């Protein structure tokens, strides 16, 4: 069976343009439609009620205002309702939830109340940003030591690309960003590099004794050599996460959505962003510049 050969590097400007347009949309969304931050970041209460027998959203709203939560945001889930309010006092939030549950005849075993104080959110945000910064440094250090700094930098560019696209999609869709989203995002940072590392490994292997073709062509060969595993590892990571998105219930869906977008973008960027950027950078090295000249002349 002959494997198809795709000229990724030759089409790299198309790939970059595509990435650029998507990034532009993502960044534009972030600017014009600020992220819908969950109560964890700004303080407030989320009341989750499940097994609500036959109540309509209006009934839930009126139960909420009767319980002392005027103008509550009510969201329907497949098994009940989620009510959000700006209440930051723990004891009153619990009382409101209990009152609502009583009105709607929801058992105490079927409700969940989360209350976040006003200043706690900045703590969570800072902790996440710190984790993000240290993650990136750790990744840069690891790749620089095991491979080389040019791979580290282009790899990190690709993962920032993935993170920006994921966040941009959250902004575009107005999806709520929770600490789980942040965790998923941070995980993507590591995981989106999985494919990139596989490609880099192959490029490094093929770089030894490179003399018969340009660096760019060799990189393209490398991409094609790992194409089958790129597709299969991508699928085998995506399938479980998509199952989580479809069947995992409300809280896990939160995780799964960010992971799905991030994995897709990560798979794409390892081929379309990290590898071509790295190859372009390497071609500027005198050794590979000479190769380029040699083969350009031959053509």
């Amino acid at each position: 069976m002959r494997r198809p050969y795709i000229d990724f590097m030759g089409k790299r400007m198309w790939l970059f343009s595509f990435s650029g347009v998507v990034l532009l949309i993502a960044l534009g969304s972030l600017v014009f439609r600020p992220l819908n931050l969950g109560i964890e970041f700004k303080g407030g209460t989320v009341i989750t009620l499940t097994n609500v027998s036959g109540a309509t959203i209006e009934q839930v709203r009126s139960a909420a205002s009767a319980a002392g939560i005027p103008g509550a945001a009510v969201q329907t889930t497949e098994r009940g309702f989620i009510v959000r309010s700006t209440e930051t006092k723990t004891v009153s939030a619990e009382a409101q939830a209990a009152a609502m549950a009583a009105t709607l005849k929801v058992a105490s075993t079927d409700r969940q109340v989360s209350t976040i104080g006003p200043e706690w959110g900045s703590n969570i945000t800072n902790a996440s940003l710190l984790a993000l910064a240290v993650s990136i440094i750790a990744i840069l250090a690891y790749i620089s030591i095991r491979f080389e700094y040019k791979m580290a930098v282009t790899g990190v560019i690709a993962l920032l690309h993935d993170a920006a696209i994921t966040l941009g999609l959250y902004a575009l869709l107005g999806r709520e960003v929770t600490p789980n989203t942040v965790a998923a995002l941070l995980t993507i940072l590591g995981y989106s590099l999985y494919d990139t590392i596989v490609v880099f490994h192959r490029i490094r292997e093929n770089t030894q004794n490179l003399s018969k073709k340009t660096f760019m062509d060799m990189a393209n060969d490398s991409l094609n050599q790992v194409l089958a595993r790129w597709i299969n590892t991508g699928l085998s990571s995506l399938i479980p996460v998509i199952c989580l998105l479809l069947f995992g219930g409300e809280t896990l869906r939160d995780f799964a959505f960010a992971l799905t977008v991030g994995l897709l973008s990560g798979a794409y960027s390892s081929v379309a962003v990290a590898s071509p950027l790295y190859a372009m950078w390497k071609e500027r090295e005198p050794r590979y510049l000479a190769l380029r000249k040699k083969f350009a002349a031959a053509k």
Partner: protein
Amino acid sequence: MDSRQKNYLAIAGLVVLLVGALLFLLPFKKADSVSWQAGTASGSSTLKESKAVIGLTADGIGVQAAADSSMKPIALLERITDSTATVSASWRVSATTESTLPITVRGAVVKSAELSYGTTFTVGSSSFSLQEGGSSITQGLDLRGGLSVILTPKKAADAVAMQRALVIMNTRVNGLGVSEATVQLENDNQAILVQLPGVRDARGALDVIGQAGQLAFVEVASLPTTLQAQVVDGFKMPAGSYKPFMTGDVITTANAKASSNVARPGYEVSVSMNASGTATWAEVTTRSFPTGARIAILLDGTVVSAPSVNEAITGGDTSITGNFTAEEARKLAMILQSGALPVDLQFSQTEVVGPTLGQDSLYQGITAALIGFAIVALYLALYYRGFGLLSWISLGSFAVVYLGVLSVLSGAGQYALSLPGIAGITLSIGLAADTSILIFERYKEEIAMGRTPRAAAKSGTKHAILTSLDADAVTFASAIPLFIFAIGPVKGFALTLMIGIVCDLTIAMLFTRPAVILLAEKTIGKIPGFFGVKGSAVDA
């Protein structure tokens, strides 16, 4: 040792690992049941696993150590969660008493019943259920239900003050009588995380956690006679039932030190008081010591110590002796010195989760993970055929070892599965499949390059494992900061993922690689089509 033996040894190692993991996952559940005789006093029987006797007492159910004659809330108590929050005091029963309380199991009054895990039974007006314990993976609060609170100081507090606040919070939480409650410092000592699994009366618990922290000294003799007998450590005094003669603010220092008394070795707590405290203390001890009367020290109404007065203390400097361990003495000293909360705490995050809600999420999460696992396994079998079947063993072993490690960590109290943890497990399934894919692809590629099945097996699997080592390491490197710096359940996600990565690489080295090499010796060469390497060179 030749390389062939090494491969067999690696697989043998995996088998040992699998057996070990299975032992943890499927502990021999003997007939852990308790028979009860209604209307008789000693309706009790030994639970094999816990070596404790559970029996009826006047106030409820007590637990008796096999060697001890008195009913105490020990080991087994952790397996019994009461479904009413107020019953905690009944556990503190000092003697086995005849009782004729009717016992109801599943709504019917019975004379004797076999209680297995999960059975709910009621004694008097309280209901209990015997919880399964010891095996499998601990569930976090978001899955089993309960109350989780994060308290932070209103103004930044130093570590010492937070440490004191932690001790006080611990005392309060213990007073609630919730089994498996945890109190710990988080976020660089700037937050206290309180977790009360299974608690029903969330508002009551919040009131207790949020109170001011009052240390009181009470003469036991001044209490009503019925209460006097119940003054033991941990007993929660009914509100308004006592009148303190002194409060904690008179104490200037309290230290734990090794006992100076040769006759009573161990640790003691030495206490100094200010002038007004010294005067009151002198008066009370002078009055109490002839009868050896006791003085109860209460923190927010809960007895933390109730020493007898051995002498009149007029100088204020007091030693509280007892059979303290160093740890107990240190704790008591800390409570004495910092009865009132040294920092102004506020609720920063509160989460009340109904138990059925959590179990629903768990069920959905596990279903989703299993479906994902099945589809990936099916895909691998269809795409890689022979190797796909091999990957089933790899993935199966991965699952067993992974869950085994999680349950060992659970048993050591180091791990609790949370919802984000399920996401971590799901992602790890993908990672494990990735490693197998890298190995098979590389193998097929080397065959295509003209290597023989045997030659390709050795170099191919080695290269593939090196690749996945780097790829996994990068994921691992990004999970570490998440584990260290993130707050709350996200930590659990990072830990789950890190453990998954380690398990994945272990299986790749102990099983997948040796298995491919061993299969390459004869089998693959015989049926190359089944392994997708048709047209391979033939081994000499």
